[in-house]
């Protein structure tokens, strides 16, 4: 693979110190994502974790449908495209067929919490030994900003022009809380990508999630509150502020399930 780490001109010379390096599993090319979009950060965090844990060479990505449909262009790992919403079912098939592989899905809110809610909840409930990375930005991005299952009450989207109304349009679905209540889940945490502090915590959560899979403890889940400046009609900084001020109060950050210790003691097999 051609990457920046192998380019001699980019390596530190005499008297220079390397303080920030490229991530081999993250492809070194411009993405199709909009300016200020948080998919880039999420991709980098997942790639760093795969590299640090040495998992990339046996990893298989299940890509979803939405803005992240082409996520496989940016992860240097084996990948398969899934029908809309079925990523956790596809991942189930892969992990069952190749138990030695590391399987993860990367899904948006429409994919996981609307059309794919059944597949996500049941894979989690069966304790499938896979990791689901869930990007919650409260809108359908790729199709142009329609209402998502996670859209906040009162939020205007292209299909809720008057703002989302509870009765008739529903309230924001809390996936981490749902996952937290399912017996097959080993680990579920909600993080945010609006600040350096939260980004660091998100990486820690992803590391924990993939570690669970390595140990065969069951389904692991990380929700990332992410910004969509384009469809929110905000500049990137204001989009970050919206996460802090409007999303986090509705979607509290934290760990919703962590049964790592009990599982290890009971020696549950994957």
């Amino acid at each position, binding site marked *: 693979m051609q990457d920046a780490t192998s380019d001699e001109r980019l390596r530190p010379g005499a008297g220079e110190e390397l303080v920030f390096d490229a991530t081999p599993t993250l492809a070194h090319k411009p993405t199709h994502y909009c300016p200020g979009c948080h998919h880039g950060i999420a991709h980098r965090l997942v790639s760093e974790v795969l590299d640090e844990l040495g998992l*990339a*060479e046996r990893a298989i990505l299940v890509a979803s449908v939405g803005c992240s449909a082409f996520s496989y262009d940016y992860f240097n790992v*084996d*990948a398969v*495209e899934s029908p809309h919403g*079925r990523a956790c079912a596809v*991942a189930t*098939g892969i992990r069952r067929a190749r138990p030695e592989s590391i399987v993860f899905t990367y899904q948006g809110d429409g994919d996981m919490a609307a059309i794919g809610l*059944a597949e996500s909840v049941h894979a989690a409930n069966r304790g499938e030994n896979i990791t689901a990375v869930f990007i919650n930005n409260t809108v359908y991005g790729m199709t142009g900003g329609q209402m998502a299952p996670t859209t906040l009450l009162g939020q205007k989207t292209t299909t809720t022009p008057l703002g989302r109304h509870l009765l008739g349009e529903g309230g924001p679905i809390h996936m981490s809380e749902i996952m937290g209540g399912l017996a097959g889940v080993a680990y579920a945490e909600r993080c945010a990508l609006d600040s350096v502090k939260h980004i660091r915590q998100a990486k820690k959560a992803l590391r924990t999630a993939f570690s669970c899979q390595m140990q065969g403890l069951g389904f692991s889940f990380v929700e990332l509150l992410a910004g969509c400046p384009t469809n929110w009609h905000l500049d990137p900084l204001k989009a970050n502020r919206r996460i802090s001020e409007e999303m986090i109060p509705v979607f509290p950050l934290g760990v919703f399930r962590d049964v790592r210790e009990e599982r290890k003691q009971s020696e549950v097999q994957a």
Partner: protein
Amino acid sequence: MNDGRILIKGNEAVAYGALDAGCRCYFGYPITPQNEIPEAMSRLLPENGGQFVQAESELAASAMLLGAGSCGIPAMTSSSSCGIALMQESLSYMAGSQIPGVIVNMMRGGPGLGDIGPSQGDYFQAVKGGGNGDHRNFVLAPSTAQECYDFMFRAFRLAFTFANPVMVLGDAIVAQIKEGVRRQPPADALTADGYAALSAPWRLEGYGKRGPGAGPRLLKSVYLAEGALAERNVLLMRKYEAMRAHVAWEEWQCEDAELIVVAFGSVARIARSAVRQLREQGCRVGLFRPVTLFPFPEAALRRVARDRRLLVMEQNTGQMVEDVRLALDVLARRSTVSWHGIMPGMFIGADDLVDPILTALRED
């Protein structure tokens, strides 16, 4: 039985056939009349180091099949008519992404929830693609429990030969009939190594398994760049054309026949009894039975039919008859193709087919 045969249902024969053919994963959702397949697989696969998952829906089951197939592992699902309709989503993706998998459809009556009786109402759903876009499934139609066993070997081999979904199309009669079955794998049955060799150029496994310097692989059906999808569809079209080399059919008593009955699956075996009865009465009738429904045995049918009269018998409101008429180019050749439908859900015997055959034979 002391001749080496075991007395089992068609559904159980499917399960034994799949296991003996090297199937490693089964994904399915309960639906009548095929429940003995998942029930048998839930026991047989774990006993033999395989995986069984009862999915939350047919949507999920077929997506799991896509996942397992993408890894180059022989896997299958089974369902019936309305459940198969839900699976069409993943079947289209699998065809587009060139991912193998075996799907058993034990048809029930339709449309909608229909009934649980015998039916051949999914002929179109099976042979015309069924899902969105231009895709085709290879379709095999067993008519006995023994064929349910034997065809599973062909199904898995074809799925891996073409990296495409293969459908085994039976119905409530084939599924539920209990017959003596010889559990004898064919001499050319693929081994795990055989499947691995066929999937080596494309399967997902993590690039580390492919040695130093290997790049990542991607299986997908989306092609947005100008001309890319056209190129993909031309490639798939050529593959569907290449499937013709594996076309299969059966001819019985056709040599001197004035009228040939064309039927598949359970109707074909009942029609055989009717033809036998009529032969005993001195009527010159024969049977042509397509074994593969896609590819359809067009050339063989043209050769057998010549200028003789044909009677298509099928348990639906008229589906395979369209392919028979297309195969014979009826307007150009002035062949006579009449049709006798049996409504889905009805249980028929040979006597029910004798009169329609006689009527067609005596028509001018």
